[in-house]
């Protein structure tokens, strides 16, 4: 039986990066202690556990911190390697999973931010690039149920968490993601049928309120 204190997660409920780690832990059935962080007033624990980036999420296992959500997900997969594999075992398939998760990391947050943080022409450009990125991902998904094939896995985990921010981005940007990317939406809904995903993704309207508040605090109109 696992001691709850062995696994601790420092996180923010609205963080799409933190959600990735929560989904991975849920997929593996790992019990953990969740400690909500106030990102506007960072705790000593957070600064001690992630001195380099000072960000959430931070997974702490037996007192040792693992920072960066995708690194934490891989760590979870390697430690609890007796159940629900999140990454394929074939080196080439694994490299493709890492490549697409890296693509999500490089593009999706920043492009979404262009939509919610900018106005006018910049925002319009952001909307176009954001949709194009999602459409590229749709093309990569193809006819497969999940990015890894038949099973929900690493790329799905890296990406589906952004779905909880779509309502906020659509509302602020005044556009519909579903009308441009219906395949993406149906894939996201398929992921949501999984308990690990549906129990992790927060209410979209709550996220929208969070984002409006964040914009105020950051001084973004």
């Amino acid at each position, binding site marked *: 039986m696992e001691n709850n204190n062995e696994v601790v997660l420092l996180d923010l409920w609205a963080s799409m990066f933190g959600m990735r780690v929560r989904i991975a832990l849920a997929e593996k059935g790992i019990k953990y202690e969740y400690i909500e962080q106030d990102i506007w007033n960072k705790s000593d624990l957070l600064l001690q556990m992630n001195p*380099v*980036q000072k960000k959430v999420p931070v997974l702490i*296992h037996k007192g*040792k911190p*693992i*920072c*960066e959500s995708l*690194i*934490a997900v*891989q*760590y979870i997969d*390697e*430690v609890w390697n007796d159940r629900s594999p999140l990454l394929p075992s074939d*080196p*080439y398939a*694994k*490299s*493709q999973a*890492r*490549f697409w998760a*890296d*693509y999500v990391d490089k593009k999706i947050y920043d492009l979404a931010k262009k939509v919610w943080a900018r106005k006018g022409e910049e925002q319009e450009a952001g909307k176009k690039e954001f949709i194009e990125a999602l459409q*590229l991902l749709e093309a990569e998904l193809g006819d497969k149920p999940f990015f890894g094939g038949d099973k929900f896995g690493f790329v799905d985990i890296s990406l589906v968490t952004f779905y909880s921010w779509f309502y906020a981005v659509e509302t602020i940007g005044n556009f519909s993601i579903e009308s441009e990317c219906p395949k993406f939406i149906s894939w996201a809904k398929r992921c949501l049928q999984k308990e690990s995903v549906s129990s992790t993704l927060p209410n979209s309207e709550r996220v929208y309120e969070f984002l409006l508040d964040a914009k105020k605090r950051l001084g973004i109109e």
Partner: protein
Amino acid sequence: MDSSDNEQVRLLGKWASPFSNRVDLALKLKGVPYKYSEEDLANKSVDLLNYNPVHKKVPVLVHNGNSIAESLVILQYIDEAWNNHPFLPQEPYQRALARFWCKTLDDKILPAIWNACWSNEKGREKAVEEALEALKILQDELKDKKFFGGETIGLVDIAANFIGYWVSILQEIAGLELLTIEKFPKLYKWSQEYINHPVIKEGLPPRDELFAFFKASAKK
């Protein structure tokens, strides 16, 4: 189909790019023979666009007809496809740490140093401060180890080729003192071990050519 064609390893790269060079170093450390093609990014080849349609960048590794892009993804692939001279330890926490430092190199440390070396007068002071802070973080991680990987070259060492080799050239061109023996004795010592390592030495591009290349870029 000829089995030697199937085993063929090909690298599409740019000789002056540290990202491309990482893959050269990795393949050489594993003793994997490969074909190298120099890519002209101003005039991208059909092969490059075919093998890396998403980013259209180098490096790209092609193995058994399959292509892999993004240097850190490629390095991990090479480590997993060839079992000799492992770049990563077996223990999951140490592996996570190595991956973290590779990512931190790319996300934070390399950009800070690059910015400092190419900064104009206005932004210089702040850029240099951030570069020095980044080098300190890296030195703190190295501690007293011979290499980031311990006694042997590991994933972080390969990823840190920019620090070990490119920085000395770029800082000279920029007239800056970033990585020096006075400021960062342990990291400097590592850089010397690194560039004198028999395999790494053979795999790095020639210093005078690299100097000339970046000096020419600085003039533009």
